[in-house]
């Protein structure tokens, strides 16, 4: 109870702070609570999956120098192996941006890196190995989202049956467990209004403090995200176990309010940045659609399907999305065909694809600088979902974007370099810490 109150208070005070900070925000998918890199990013941190037969086979945090003019521009300047494979996946900074939390979807380990002491050389500060026991059975720490003084973490599964039923979890920045919020289900809606079904699944989480709302999306449980992708596509039972919901929460009280019906596994959530833009996008991985979640004239939140991504009947599998800081464009990657697609989202109700480019045989994550001039791509989706054999290229590729054309700046072959499967990218800069 006391914790509740505290969290309520801190969320409220910080909601005020946020308003002022968000205007100077940089990379377009970060928490609004976070201090920002206003100009050129200096380093790209790549949370990388160990790959059998490649290098030391271990998960690692790879640091790439992207300072223009630097002697080591476009080169790996640091690599820290954690030992073992944990299904390295997403990573996120604390709100003070001094630490990077990087999670393992398989073993539930969370690695907390100090990125401020020497941004060119992140140092492992702490490892949390008790996530499942702490949370009362949540499995698969996924999104690490900065709230004031604490991390909001989505899980993907649970320790009872490896299904998608799961929770949102809070830890303090110091690594102390705070609270578990189970995602509402049909059996236990926890007061939420349910549009059609409440599967209780999780994936991403993002907040809009101005409106006191938080959104979470839904993927699938451990047994699916760990499974050989080809095997799964043929397993009719397994294919029935994908998320079909986006949940709207009260940010302050963490109470679920509404469960939208968004079939086909909605993954990444991106809020628009505009001061009066009360909407977010998500893309559904299996059904290949863009969805808009928006507050209507009556103050009710609604989810609507607004565009196809590629030809949905071919399962292009949209994965990461990245919205432009001006809310006018959005990059959408499709894993199966290895393409990035730029959508004009100036009319949020009717996004239109205006550009596409083949990045590799497969492509997963996309990150852009705040000004949108630089766009980075990585290749790996999940260890057992990545393409097999020759098609399994693993890379970080850096491009410039001039509004018309993506031009490649450099590419790092993560297999040749003995690193592994390249997953999420996060930007670092020493200027964040020099006052």
């Amino acid at each position, binding site marked *: 109870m006391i914790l509740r109150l505290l969290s309520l208070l801190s969320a409220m005070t910080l909601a005020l702070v946020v308003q002022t900070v968000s205007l100077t925000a940089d990379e377009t998918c970060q928490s609004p609570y976070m201090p920002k890199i206003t100009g050129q990013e200096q380093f790209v941190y790549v949370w990388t999956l160990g790959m059998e037969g490649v290098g030391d086979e271990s998960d690692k945090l790879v640091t790439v120098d992207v300072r223009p003019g630097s002697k080591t521009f476009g080169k790996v300047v640091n690599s820290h192996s954690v030992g073992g494979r944990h299904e390295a996946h997403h990573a996120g900074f604390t709100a003070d941006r001094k630490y990077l939390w990087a999670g393992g979807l398989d073993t539930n380990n969370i690695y907390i890196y100090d990125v401020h002491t020497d941004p060119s050389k992140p140092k492992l500060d702490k490892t949390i190995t008790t996530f499942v*026991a702490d949370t009362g059975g949540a499995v698969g720490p996924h999104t690490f989202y900065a709230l004031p003084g604490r991390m909001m973490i989505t899980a993907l599964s649970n320790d009872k049956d490896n299904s998608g039923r799961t929770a949102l979890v809070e830890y303090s920045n110091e690594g102390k467990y705070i609270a578990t919020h189970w995602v509402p289900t049909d059996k236990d809606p926890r007061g939420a209004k349910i549009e059609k079904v409440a599967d209780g699944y999780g994936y991403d989480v993002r907040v809009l403090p101005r409106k006191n709302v938080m959104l979470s999306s839904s993927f699938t449980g451990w*047994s699916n995200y760990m499974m050989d992708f080809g095997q799964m596509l043929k397993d009719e*039972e397994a294919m029935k176990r994908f998320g079909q919901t986006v949940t709207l929460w009260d940010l302050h009280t963490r109470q679920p309010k509404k469960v939208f019906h968004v079939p086909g596994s909605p993954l990444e959530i991106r809020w628009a940045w505009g001061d009066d833009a009360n909407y977010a996008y998500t893309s559904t991985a299996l059904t290949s659609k863009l969805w808009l979640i928006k507050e209507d004239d009556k103050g009710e939140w609604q989810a609507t399907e607004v565009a196809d991504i590629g030809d949905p009947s071919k*399962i292009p599998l949209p994965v990461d999305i990245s919205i432009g800081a001006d809310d006018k464009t959005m990059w959408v990657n499709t894993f199966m065909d290895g393409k990035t697609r730029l959508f004009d989202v100036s009319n949020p109700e009717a996004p239109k694809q205006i550009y596409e480019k083949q990045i590799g045989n497969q492509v997963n994550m996309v990150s852009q600088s705040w000004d949108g001039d630089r766009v980075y791509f990585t290749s790996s989706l999940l260890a057992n979902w990545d393409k097999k054999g020759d098609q399994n290229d693993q890379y970080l590729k850096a491009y410039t974007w001039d509004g018309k054309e993506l031009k490649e700046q450099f590419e790092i072959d993560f297999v040749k370099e003995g690193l592994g499967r390249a997953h999420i990218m996060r930007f670092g800069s020493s200027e964040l810490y020099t006052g």
Partner: protein
Amino acid sequence: MRTLLRALALLLVAGPLSAAALYAAAGPDWADDALKRVLAPPLGLPAIAHPAANPPTAAKIALGRKLFFDRRLSHNNTTSCAMCHVPEQGFTSNDLATPVGVEGRSVRRNTPTVLNIAYVDALFHDGRDPALETQYVAPITAFNEMANPSLGYVIDKIANLDDYNAPFQAAFGAGPSPDRLGQALAAYQRSLLAGASPFDRWRFGGESDALGERERQGFELFTGKAGCVACHAIGESSALFSDGLFHDTGYGWQREQERQGKGGMVEVEIAPGVITSIPHSVVQSVGNPPPADLGRYEVTQDPKDRWRFRTPSLRNVTLTAPYMHDGQLQRLDDVVAFYNAGGVPHDGLDERIKPLGLTVEEQVALVAFLKSLTGSNIDQLAAEARVEEPDNIR
């Protein structure tokens, strides 16, 4: 009172699956109840022949349960026996045709239930292990299941976990060893007896109205025209619904033909009711090729055993979907349709498998009969299984 408190505590701490466990509550004395069950099995189940070296005790059963649910028993602490043999899913997994082990590695066969496993003499679909006391070594050390580097490694790991001192002492007066691990796991699994189903009450309990008319018609077919009982045996005073032997129904052979046949389209359900077709080559680009499965032959190397699999019990079959050794049939209707068509004719097909000429109505009756085989104490077994949260690193 203590039971009630326990149930309340469960309510408070339990995560996503608490509801199922709450239908029936298990108190601190649950292992005593389990022991009683092992010594006097529910209606319809025969007495258990316990190995002389491993008589059941409540302490062994309690320790076995703890081991069965301990995720630390796998190399990277993610996979317990119960992550594949899920209590609320009939001690198998309804979510998957074939399971995944440590690091998501593929396992080629469907997870069988461990309900009533006390009566199985030849364990695994191919019958390769004769005893529950030794069976566990396979999943514990299999690279694609729990992936431990060696058996000794696990014994040593358990010996170094504080919470195992007391239960091993209580059960054996000694610490962990390969034998004792096997004995405890076996004792717990033997206690998972699910009987006194509507069928049992009708057939062995003298309750003539425990089965409806349709179920009784299904029974007539099962033991008559459809000939199922020839392999899924029913006795005079008890029934296991298995002869414990290995047969070729044509199913395994057919799966091998499909495995070798490349090309074509694969139907994928991308959202409930939304199905699309993609080329097999696309599926192959993100998947490892499925391995072959020759069944009993892999154990005996006798050519006549190719594609023979052990007759599974049909008890609790409603709870154990999907079906067959690779889980590719999803509903009981599909299985009955398979038999009605005469299996898959080829050299080696068991002669008792032939077109049955069952009408639609008869097939419905047969399925209704199969659905009457669910034990009355399933919720109790699940509640006992969840008497504590699964073990994780603390």
